[in-house]
């Protein structure tokens, strides 16, 4: 199916989210849509799917003008969408989710479940996306759930499939499976709009790439002839450093010392076991690992958020065992939590308020139990300009900012005071290229000030780009840290549980 968008404009109060967007998606094409967070990709797709109405412009499908009142119209026109947050009912079965809204019934309105299961099984088989039609969706891993979403669109005979950040929740292997499914789909003459801010993926799957910046299409590129650097520059609107400039570390005395740490979950099972780790002043130690191997409880124990079952943790000589969370943070620890929306920010508070969450009762922001808004706002304006936070004002609620800018608020708050230890957990998750570059630069700058940095990341590229030493977590235990440079392949194998001696051919280096 050939899709044409002409002059689509959408205004929200105070913002033009889409500004005269023209876009053509040819039959059988994978069209990449690249842009930073907040560039207007999702808005454009929601218009195309009938969730928003456009203020101006028209949508043509195979030359026919399309009027979209609601998603039902888009589905009828052959448009399917896989949302970033899955639109699946967790307690329903796969088949129930897929037929929802277009159910076949027998007498008395009875659902024809057998027919639904059979049709879904056949469709799954045909499209190379195997799935058990009678499994409950909540019991399925995320990658399979996404498959169900795609099948849902195929069941409605979608001829254009919109994939909104489909790889954000996938492991690399699952992403490869997805790319294969996309290829099979377009081989039938169907089209795909692929949204992502990961340059590498666009180059891997897209036939053509349109770059959206601040609501406008700023260019269309051929992935075969365009480099990642050129795409990044186009997307951000200025030359971007894709690699981090990092002088060698000059480590100082030990700051974080972890000895024999054991952390247990709510049921008393160990989630971190026997972990020893020392991080010195002015060095970045990265903890790599597939998520769920104990990184989260490790970080929570180090920052005083979770009880230490056994072992001891000290920061610049001060024990964390027995200290309150407030004491740990006030005494000189910065913490960028892995989930900014639940742990990093209060979405309904203003940017200014969020910027003093760690110093809410300290001078000069509070005096005699009263918040000093003049000081708070001045402080916020300073940080907003120093950390390049793109916000209409410091009174804007943090939740209304784009992901990258939300993360910059957290980073500004945690970085902008003298600290001994900085704990940064997944600091660039869901953040666009421009912001990633910025946050990486800030991390290195913090290190060069003399701060010890504990970086936890599941992005191997990030680990290797920033770390002075790399440790790997697997099943609650830590191996390393190892001196860098270290090969990506070696770290990858240790993330899967391989023995370090075998991988590196020698005894673990780095730590004496």
């Amino acid at each position, binding site marked *: 199916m050939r899709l044409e968008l002409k002059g689509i404009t959408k205004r929200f109060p105070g913002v033009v989210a889409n500004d005269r967007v023209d876009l053509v998606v040819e039959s059988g094409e994978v069209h990449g849509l690249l842009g930073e967070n907040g560039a207007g990709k999702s808005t454009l797709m*929601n218009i195309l*799917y009938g*969730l*928003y109405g456009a203020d101006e412009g028209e949508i043509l499908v195979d030359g026919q003008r399309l009027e979209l009142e*609601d*998603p*039902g119209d888009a*589905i009828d026109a052959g448009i399917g*969408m896989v*949302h970033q947050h*899955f*639109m*699946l*009912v*967790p*307690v*329903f079965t796969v088949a*129930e*989710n897929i037929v*929802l*809204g*277009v*159910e076949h*019934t027998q007498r*008395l*309105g*009875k*659902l024809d479940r057998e027919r639904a299961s059979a049709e879904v099984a056949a469709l799954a088989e045909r499209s190379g996306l195997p799935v058990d039609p009678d499994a409950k969706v909540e019991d399925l891993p995320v990658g399979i759930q996404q498959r169900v979403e795609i099948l*849902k669109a195929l069941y409605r005979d979608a001829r254009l499939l919109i994939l909104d950040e489909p790889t954000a929740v996938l492991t690399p292997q699952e992403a490869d499976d997805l790319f294969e499914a996309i290829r099979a789909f377009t081989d039938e003459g169907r089209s795909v709009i692929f949204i992502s801010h990961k340059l590498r993926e666009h180059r891997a799957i897209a036939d053509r790439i349109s770059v959206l910046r601040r609501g406008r299409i700023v260019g269309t590129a051929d992935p075969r002839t365009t480099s990642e650097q050129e795409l990044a520059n186009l997307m951000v609107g200025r030359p971007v450093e894709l690699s981090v400039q990092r002088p060698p570390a000059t480590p100082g005395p030990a700051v974080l010392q972890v000895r024999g740490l054991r952390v247990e*979950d709510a*049921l*008393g*099972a*160990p*989630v971190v076991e026997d972990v020893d780790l020392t991080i010195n002043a002015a060095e970045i130690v990265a903890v790599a690992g597939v998520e769920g191997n104990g990184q989260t409880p490790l970080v929570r124990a180090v920052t005083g958020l979770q009880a230490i079952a056994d072992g001891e943790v000290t920061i610049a000589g001060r024990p964390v065992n027995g200290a309150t969370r407030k004491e740990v943070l006030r005494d000189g620890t910065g913490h960028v939590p892995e989930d900014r929306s639940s742990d990093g920010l209060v979405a309904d508070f203003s940017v200014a308020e969020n910027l003093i969450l760690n110093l809410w009762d300290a001078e000069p922001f509070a005096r005699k139990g009263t918040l000093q808004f003049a000081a708070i706002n001045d402080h916020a304006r300073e940080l907003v300009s120093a950390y390049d936070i793109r916000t209409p004002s410091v009174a804007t609620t943090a939740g209304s900012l784009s992901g990258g800018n939300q993360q910059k608020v957290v980073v500004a708050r945690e970085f902008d005071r003298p600290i001994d230890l900085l704990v940064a957990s997944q600091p660039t998750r869901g953040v666009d290229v421009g912001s990633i570059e910025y946050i990486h630069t800030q991390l290195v700058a913090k290190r060069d000030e003399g701060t010890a940095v504990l970086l936890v990341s599941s992005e191997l590229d990030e680990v290797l780009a920033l770390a002075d030493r790399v440790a790997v977590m697997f*099943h*609650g235990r830590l191996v390393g840290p190892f001196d860098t440079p270290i090969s990506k392949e070696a770290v990858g194998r240790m993330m899967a549980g391989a023995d370090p001696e075998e991988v590196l051919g020698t005894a673990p280096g780095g730590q004496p």
Partner: protein
Amino acid sequence: MSQTVTAPAAQRRRERRFGVFSLLVLAVMLGVFATSARGEQATFVLNDARGQLFELPNLVVDVVPAVLVLSAIVAVIAYRQFTTGFGSKAVLLVGVVALLFVLAFLTWAAAEGQLSVVGLLRGSLARATPIALGALAGVVCERAGVINIAIEGQFLAGAFTAAVVSSLASDPWIGLFGGIGAGVLVAFMLAGLTIQFKADQIVVGVVLIVFATGVTSFLNTQVLSGNPQLNSPTRFTAIAVPVLSEIPLIGPVFFRQSVMVFGMLIAVATLHYALFQTRWGLRLRSVGEHPKAADTVGINVLATRYKAVLLGGVFAGIGGAWWTLDAVGQFSREMTGGRGFIALAAMLVGRYSPVGAFGAALIFGFADQIATSLQLLRVPVPSDLLLTAPFLVTILVVAGLMGRLRPPAANGKPYTKE
């Protein structure tokens, strides 16, 4: 990692708690029922006064030996609860213990007297009727994602209106429609305020209860007390199903009831089927679980919720009409006495399923009926205390069984398109 290893430990702790419950029950059985009976023999009457195919003998038991036998079974269950446990049947065994306790209690209460088993069971089913209907109202609303705590208000409005309309029309069927209308009207206010204007569903529910209580009490004092002809509704009479109603024990309990009881049973079965087997039910549940998902496949979320709440109003209106058209035959101030909240509890204990809610309603109906039956037996328990039985049972059941309840995911959350 080895997280699952500890799950059986939690299960064991839970079973030991159940064991403590069994021991408490055992203590009461041995300490009170076995020692303080007023007579040696208890008589359970199994016959109904009306026509039967054949007569059953009365069941006469010796109080102390019977209580001791029941106690012994409880003791064995308690022992097992503390040692090996019952695994997946743990909750079922708590129910068995409760049943044994009730049997011992009835034996003790009926000592030196006669207890009509038919009357007790028949009354339990009748009293379960409004509770089950109210619970259905809750189920259909909450499955669609709207919390309806205003069932008590819908009951009162339904009871009042049904009384007045039936009095005027001299026809209980027209009265029933009046009751339905009133239930739907309250539901309409709930729907409008919570679905359209996104008001907090709990707050609106409370307001509607207060509103309905106030309005019916006011009209009762100002209008009905001066015009008794407006408050003398024609009632439904009991219907006897031919032949079936003459089966001993079963007949009078299930087949000689008012039309409202039959209606309730049909409503429970129909709603259960509709919710879980039909397209309508699938869509309604999708709206309560993940409204945005429903929206993106073209289901109108707000309209679905509106209809569900109004349908709930129909059930609750019928439930309210039960008081004036079936049980009592006259409206009095706050006559529903908190049964709307018990209906809410029945819905929760029944885990948002119509059949489950009906089962819970039976328990509460039984507790309700037992309080009345025992007053007639002149049991040495203060009658005020007996009348709290339904509420005590509610607390016990809700506290004991609510552990792993999983409400619809979007329950109580207004839906807004971005």
